[in-house]
């Protein structure tokens, strides 16, 4: 299955992936509307910055599936190999945040729920928004 991978040697730490991710999953038609609608959309990818090294982290859609097994509401499930969260069922308890060993699940405080990368399956662009938007091609979408 194709997943998102990050080459930390090429990551500039520019955080553009976070903006593309947040906008793509906001439901707004473009970046400006996504960020100017009054609510700041939540990115599902997070850039870590260090001394001389940066990289983005997002759901690994991993084999362990700790979040799926820990979810108290049944909101997180696996659809065609992709770990997805049903926003209508999530209560934002954070048991998945407690369980994810990669720290890839983010709180959406305003809406009392969590958000996580679903590989942009709902965004119909073929390639996830973070991958498309990365100016240095440090983020790739591929089979490994």
């Amino acid at each position, binding site marked *: 299955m194709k997943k998102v*991978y990050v080459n930390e040697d090429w990551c500039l730490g520019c955080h553009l992936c976070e903006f593309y991710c947040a906008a793509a999953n906001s439901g707004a038609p473009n970046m400006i509307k996504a960020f100017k609608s009054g609510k700041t959309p939540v990115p599902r990818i997070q850039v870590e910055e260090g001394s001389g090294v940066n990289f983005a982290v997002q759901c690994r859609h991993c084999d362990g599936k700790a979040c799926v*097994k820990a979810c108290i509401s049944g909101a997180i499930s696996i659809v065609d190999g992709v770990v997805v969260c049903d926003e209508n069922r999530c209560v934002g308890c954070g048991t998945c945040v*407690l*369980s*994810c060993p990669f*720290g890839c699940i983010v709180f959406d405080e305003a809406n009392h729920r969590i958000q996580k990368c679903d590989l942009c399956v709902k965004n119909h662009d073929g390639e996830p928004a973070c991958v498309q938007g990365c100016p240095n091609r440090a983020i790739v979408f591929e089979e490994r």
Partner: protein
Amino acid sequence: MNYVIIGNSAAAVGTIAGIREIDSSGKITVISDEKYHTYSRPLISYWLEGRISDKNIYYRDPDFYEKNGVETILGKKAVKIDTANKSVVLEDGLAVPYDKLMIATGSKPFVPPMNGLDKTHYHTFMSYDSVKAIRSELKSGMKVLIIGAGLIGLKAAEALAAHNVQITVVDMADRVLPAVLDTRAAGKMQKHLENQGLRFILGTSADEFTEHSARLKNGVKVDFDMLIVAVGVRPNTELVADAGGTVERGIITDVTQKTSLDDIYAAGDCTVSHDISSDSDKILALLPNAYLQGEVAGKNMAGRETKYVNAIPMNAGGILGLHIISAGSYDGEEYVEETENTYKKLVIRDNKLVGYILMGNVRRAGIYTGIIKEGLDLSEVDMDLLKEKPQMMMFGKKRREEKLGGIVR
């Protein structure tokens, strides 16, 4: 193969998932004394609060049983395991035969003997029916007394706070969430809840109940219109004990989740787990633990040997907007950081992270949980970064690449 599961919550659903990963055709029967489709017990407080509907309290989709080829016997209590004939006897006398049996009977509310309680109308906070009963009697302006300031008591308080009632919480312990938080963090949580109108009377217990009031051992009298007893839970172990299986504080299993009885497995709140963070046996009444135990049991029941070996206590949840995530053991060297609204405690023993408490800022806590479960030697991580916040940066490049999926070539 004929699988029978007694219980219909997280451990049962985990068992079904485990079995179906290996065996797509064996017969599975779920027996429960509750009449409902599998629902999430921790969601009852969200239901009472009014944040979720009847539709969303269910733990799995309506077609879950059908999709997984599960037959259900709901609203009937299993009263006996007949090990000689390998069958489960129901309250109406019907015998349900099994080849492999799962005991996922969970726990029941613990109501300690208290003077006058037998003549007082009270609620517990454990099941869908218990919150339905509370909801039907709830009226705006009521005085509610909750006995127990643990997770169950405080989740009940949070739910009721949405209904414009006056809430008093009493606990014998000197702090809130005594099993989850240390004194400092508990103090912050208590202050947060008091600021939102909850009243706490701690370090004392009820001496005597009359119809609408409780007299506490410290002499204080608390009037109430509704009483909720949320002191704790006790495992449902009777079926296994009566059948001659080994039961201590809970049902004893091996690492494959098998009980001491042939072909009988157990998972969830009714069992004793081995906590690797404190190297001790205890009941870990937590939904994720129940699911994981059930899944391991299911695989073993279906013939694939699998072990469950990395259980730890862990909790996540907010009470009235203040998030807490905690895991592991608090016995060891402490690193503490505190601000007005946040608290962080990391506990290190034998150069391993064995426990933590995060409050206020709980982002990415699972990275800490993962390190505890892995038993990672901390010489492998950058300690300053570990202490700063949960982050993948703390691992060396090689380990990080292993975790995140390798280098782009």
